[in-house]
């Protein structure tokens, strides 16, 4: 039973504001800031109260053929997380949405059962009763013992924040697809094994039966067949039929990767070597597996060769047998891999959506600064975090590995051998793979034609195949009344999508065709009643679309208010085009977001004459657009499509995370073990998305805090920071490791990176320094000891003092060159009002970014470095350079050196040949140093 329609608790804000303003002004002394929801009698945490879990989690459920929907496991595997949340109920809820009644068995016109390679489906749904919203990823796994050979599963990302699900849809989908692919790869392997065993059983059975028949034949000299003999013959025939069927199944399952490889954007699951050392062993296992004992080599346990069993003519009904667990279905290795991936996903999407979005935006922006971003940012995680791009890049490579994998998974000789043995008595029908594909292209089966139409090639492909599948699209199911308004679906599906407005419009006008990957937002009413009968029957994946126009409740923020006005339409031809883009993107199942090209004016409402709205999930890119386009549009929420939401009002998360922070504040000490286990939402309300950023986030916060303390405490913070910014190594000298390390951490945020590698910061050194160290490290924590060794350390320091600034943590002195610039004082004002470490960190970042842009400008201005004409003397260029620095960039005194140093780093980075590591070089000036004291 699906719960009552969800009405998202937000009221329309414009109304609210009106009411607020219409109230008679209170006398000054009574004016208390009004809580905006006060007059609704609701408290801001009402929403949260309804959700029964403390933070987001991932749920894996199965629709068991024996007991129905049941939850299998949650990630994190912690009872506290799901709390009082009814997992059973929610499993029922999410499994009931699965419409992919995959057809397996004997399709008409085919002699053998066909495996249906069903695409995963991706659905978003909400449940007001539980206060939960979920991204649900359905997948089916194969099980020889299961009904129709399939076992439906789903993985759900459950969050109390609907917007989070909606906005992170693309990312969630991409990540879950990977996890799902991993599971399915393992499952195919396991299924193939199972089939092989079954075939052996059957072969054995046949041999036994055959022998029996022979004996009977011999004993029978009467010339007619006894009933027994006939029975045996029948049995034999059925066994042989069964053999052929199973052979066929085996072939199908093995040919799957080949088939998939032909498709444009198939991402096979490739185990990442770094994740699991067992991986290589796994490969070797495969390679080493003896051909004589097919498929029995298991990753972890080398099971003895399979001994065939005799199969009874009539197998027992399946209700009393135990179904395989997920782990058994998927091979232990792949199962653990999947769990690992899911844990990663959980970490990645932890925290408030506004935080995630900000993070994504800043990451995108940073990525765009490809020349300068390495200076003060951790670029390594930028690279990590672009799966789409990486996928595209290693497409070719990926396909190669697919082929290799296939070869590994299904060694050809094996098949040949077994085929030969079966041929003796059974007429085998060779089926070519192409035929098979043709066979499986039953138009209504919506089989594996998930094509990703970024290129016309793919469109063509779709055309040839003659089937269309509308890809991911968020469909908004409105209220009941909308159902009646739904026109019948037209079969314009096979039209190749072209980006011309006309086609686009017709496309938009066309109703749902077979959509495999689609998202439903079931938020307003019991979804079953929403789906019209004709869709339910023929298109199990059909989803309704609903104009949202006059839905006053406005449950879904991302839905633009539709204004079915003809004038609107004419005035926005360009919008139409945008719409087409959007539409084609969501109709043609595209895993990777198609919004790489910014779509202008997404803040506006795309609509068409039908008033049908199709809004693709809003990835952050669009948010960016939205930011650019309609920054001012914040108060009027009706025009905001998804990206821009009044997060401030979304109080659920505030309290949600606050609760967490309360519960886990104690854990949130400095121990790093915490990072991996507990929530990152502690103590700071902005949790970080991925675990690696988590560490850096915590580091930032701490560094910011320490830096703040440093600049307040030390009056000579400016020259120290100047040293770091100008590339002069700063040595923090002290007896106590903790103090030194703290200072180093504090100062590390000012250290420019010399390359895309780790920061040139060394927290603690006890041996004498050497010139090589100054090349490598720009900030060093050094131990001061009284031992003779300590004297050596100090000797080295004084010897190389021209390359160093020395901050003595014990006596609170600093020895370094003079600084008279203005830049650092903005960076590190000891009277700053900033209280929080993370805020200060951001402040520093913004100033450093500004600095980077100056350095960029300086570096890439041709005439500042090279003469305009050949005759121009070098002095003229130098003059021009200095003038530019002083006048154009407004730099004073030593600030010039900072920019020059950064420019030098930029140059080095830019001219660096890829693959070759540059020799680190040490630049220095012959400038006198001064001693600063408190």
């Amino acid at each position: 039973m699906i719960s009552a329609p969800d009405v998202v608790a937000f009221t329309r804000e414009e109304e609210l504001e009106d009411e607020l303003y219409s109230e008679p002004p209170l006398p000054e002394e009574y004016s208390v800031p009004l809580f905006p929801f006060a007059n609704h009698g609701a408290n801001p945490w009402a929403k949260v109260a309804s959700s029964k879990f403390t933070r987001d989690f991932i749920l894996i459920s199965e629709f068991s053929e024996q007991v129905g929907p049941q939850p299998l496991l949650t990630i994190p595997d912690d009872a506290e997380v799901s709390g009082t949340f009814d997992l059973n109920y929610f499993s029922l809820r999410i499994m009931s949405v699965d419409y992919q009644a995959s057809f397996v068995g004997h399709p008409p016109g085919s002699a053998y059962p066909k495996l249906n390679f069903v695409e995963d489906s991706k659905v978003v749904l909400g449940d007001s009763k539980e206060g939960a919203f979920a991204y649900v990823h359905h997948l089916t796994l194969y099980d020889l013992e299961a009904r129709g050979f399939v076992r439906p599963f789903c993985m759900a990302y459950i969050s109390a924040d609907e917007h989070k699900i909606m906005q992170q849809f693309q990312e969630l989908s991409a990540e879950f697809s990977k996890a799902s692919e991993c599971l399915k790869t393992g499952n195919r392997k396991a299924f193939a094994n199972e089939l092989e065993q079954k075939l052996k059983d059957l072969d054995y059975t046949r041999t036994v039966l055959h022998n029996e028949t022979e004996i009977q034949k011999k004993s029978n000299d009467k010339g007619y067949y006894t009933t027994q003999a006939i029975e045996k013959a029948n049995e034999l025939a059925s066994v042989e039929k069964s053999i052929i069927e199973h052979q066929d199944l085996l072939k199908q399952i093995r040919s799957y990767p080949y088939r998939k490889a032909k498709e444009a954007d198939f991402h096979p699951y490739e185990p990442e070597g770094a994740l699991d050392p067992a991986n290589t062993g796994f490969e070797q296992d495969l390679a080493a597996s003896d051909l004589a004992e097919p498929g029995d080599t298991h990753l972890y346990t080398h099971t003895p060769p399979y001994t065939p069993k005799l199969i009874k003519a009539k197998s027992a009904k399946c209700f009393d047998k135990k179904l395989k667990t997920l782990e058994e279905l998927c091979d232990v290795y792949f199962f653990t891999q999947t769990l690992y991936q899911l844990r990663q996903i959980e970490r990645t999407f932890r925290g408030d959506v506004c935080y995630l979005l900000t993070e994504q935006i800043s990451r995108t922006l940073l990525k765009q600064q490809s020349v300068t971003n390495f200076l003060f940012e951790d670029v390594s995680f930028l690279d990590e975090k672009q799966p789409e791009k990486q996928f595209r890049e290693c497409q070719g490579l990926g396909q190669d590995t697919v082929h290799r994998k296939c070869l590994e998974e299904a060694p050809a000789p094996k098949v040949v051998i077994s085929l030969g043995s079966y041929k003796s008595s059974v007429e085998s029908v060779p089926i070519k793979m192409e035929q098979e594909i043709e066979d499986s292209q039953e138009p209504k089966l919506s089989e594996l034609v998930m094509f990703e139409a970024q290129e016309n090639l793919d469109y063509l492909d779709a055309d040839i195949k003659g089937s269309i599948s509308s890809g991911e699209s968020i469909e908004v199911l409105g209220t009941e009344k909308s159902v009646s308004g739904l026109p019948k679906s037209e079969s314009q599906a096979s039209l190749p999508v072209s980006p011309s407005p006309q086609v686009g419009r017709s496309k938009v006008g066309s109703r749902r065709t077979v959509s495999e990957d689609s998202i439903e937002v079931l938020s307003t009413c019991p979804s079953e009643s929403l789906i019209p009968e004709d869709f339910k029957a023929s298109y199990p994946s059909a989803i309704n679309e609903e104009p949202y126009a006059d839905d006053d409740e406005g449950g879904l923020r991302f839905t633009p208010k539709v204004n079915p006005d003809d004038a609107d339409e004419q005035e926005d031809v360009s919008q139409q085009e945008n719409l087409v883009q959007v539409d084609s993107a969501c109709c043609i199942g595209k895993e990777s977001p198609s919004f790489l090209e910014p779509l202008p004016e997404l803040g506006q409402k795309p609509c068409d004459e039908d008033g049908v709205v199709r809004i693709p999930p809003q990835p952050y890119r669009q948010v960016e657009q939205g930011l650019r386009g309609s920054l001012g549009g914040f108060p009027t929420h009706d025009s905001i499509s998804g990206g821009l939401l009044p997060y401030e009002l979304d109080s659920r998360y505030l309290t949600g995370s606050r609760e967490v922070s309360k519960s886990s504040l104690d854990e949130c000490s400095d121990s790093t073990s915490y990072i991996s286990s507990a929530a990152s939402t502690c103590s700071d309300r902005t949790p970080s998305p991925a675990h690696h950023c988590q560490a850096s986030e915590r580091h930032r916060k701490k560094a910011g805090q320490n830096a703040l303390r440093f600049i307040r405490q030390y009056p000579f913070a400016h020259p120290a920071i100047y040293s770091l910014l100008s590339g002069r190594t700063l040595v923090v000298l002290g007896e106590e490791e903790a103090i030194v390390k703290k200072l180093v951490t504090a100062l590390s945020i000012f250290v420019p990176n010399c390359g895309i590698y780790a920061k040139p910061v060394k927290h603690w050194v006890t041996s004498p320094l050497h010139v090589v160290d100054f090349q490598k490290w720009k900030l060093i924590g050094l131990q001061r000891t009284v031992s003779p060794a300590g004297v050596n350390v100090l000797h080295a320091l004084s010897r190389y003092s021209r390359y160093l600034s020395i901050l003595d943590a014990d006596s609170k002195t600093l020895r370094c060159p003079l600084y008279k610039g203005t830049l650092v004082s903005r960076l590190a004002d000891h009277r700053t009002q900033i209280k929080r470490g993370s805020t200060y960190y951001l402040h520093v970042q913004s100033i450093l970014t500004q600095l980077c842009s100056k350095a960029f400008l300086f570096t890439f201005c041709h005439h500042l470095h090279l003469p305009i004409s050949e005759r121009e003397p070098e002095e003229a260029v130098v003059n021009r350079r200095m003038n530019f620095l002083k006048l154009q960039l407004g730099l004073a005194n030593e600030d010039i050196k900072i920019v020059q140093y950064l420019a030098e780093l930029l140059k080095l980075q830019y001219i660096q040949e890829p693959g070759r590591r540059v020799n680190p070089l040490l630049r220095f000036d012959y400038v006198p140093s001064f001693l600063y004291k408190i």
Partner: protein
Amino acid sequence: MLRWLIGGGREPQGLAEKSSVQTIGEEQIQNPYTELLVLKGHQDIVRFLVQIDDCRFASAGDDGIVFLWNAQTGEKLLELHGHTHKITAITSFSSSDASEEKNHFILTASADRTVIVWDCTSGRQVRKVSCFHSTVKCLTVLRRLDVWLSGGSDLCVWNQKLDLLCKTSHLTDAGISALVELPKNCVAAAVGKELIIFRLIASNDESEGWNVLEVKRLVDHQDNILSLVSVNDLTFVTGSYVGELIVWDALDWTKQAYECNFWDSSVHPDVQPEIKLSQSPNETPVQHLTCDEECVFAAVGKGIYVYNLQMKHVIACQRTAHDSSVLHIEKLPNRQLISCSEDGSVRIWELREKQQLPAEPVPTGFFSMWGFGRANKQANQAAKKMQENTPVYILELVGDLIGHSSAVQMFLYFGELGLATCSADHLIILWKDGERESRLRSLTLFQKLAQNDDLQLKF
């Protein structure tokens, strides 16, 4: 400064303590080297640097490995393995093939009693000779005669193909320590205290054959001859362990001048007696000699002396140019002199005409790094006295390069490409003009930008 570090915030008064060694503050306007590259590769002391062509040089040392480096980028070009012991001598030569291209080779001699010829382009061994009875300590290529000489316990003459043409009889066990080419097919070999002149005579019977003939033995030095340098076709100079400097006529091998103990402070009447104590004759070996047309520059003990050949006396000197022995000096074209020393520093000097008022040494900064820990109490008189005594010229410190942590064995001046120094700390450091490098990088950057037609950058 050390005191400041140790004492941690105590009044750094004692820092002003004077040192005998002339120091230069941290402000070195004339020092062009503002960028350094550390070249790592050697496992042991690096003793030799030899230039191959305009932008390549080879380094060799006690680990027996020869490295070839790019002097501009610091890139390691080749790693030549072949010797099992430390390398004792290295020299480079080039031969022009029939084709226009010049082939560059290096000759290395090692304590494993082999000599190997290496091809600098491919890095392979061209030839290996291992018929020596003792370690070859010096190698000289006579371009004129197209032969090369190896000096160990005997002197061997080889042709380009490394065929032994002739050799002398066994000379001494100590062997030849230095060889220098003289006019008229002669070579001077330093063997212990003696200087032996050999002459190469083309043998009559064979076209390619040479005979080597001992012509003269010069026994004027009191102690072992350490350095031997040819000034021009008419003169060569030798220096010995006890600080004798003899100028020879290269044609008739007669003494033109003999300077003994001219660096001994006792010669100069008004020098403090303390200095005498600290400078026993044993500490004044003539470590290295170099010269230009007019002067011979001698690294004697810790000091540097400029000896004018015309005037036949020392025109300028820096008695304690370094904290310990100067190992190598070289004259630059621009009246500058570079010296390196066991104290791990490299110093740049400029030979200036003395003005009326002798310029005060550059004031040591308040936190001068040199202002501590020196045991000697000889104050700064030395420098001042020196200035008074030197007639016309002074050697002024214009910069120092601190980078090595141990004795700087040798350096190689590459003109505007910079300076390569090698040291006992296993490192080679390339010192570069930061301004120039920065300009070059900009040039490369814009070239690359133009090349890529950079799509990545959207200006």
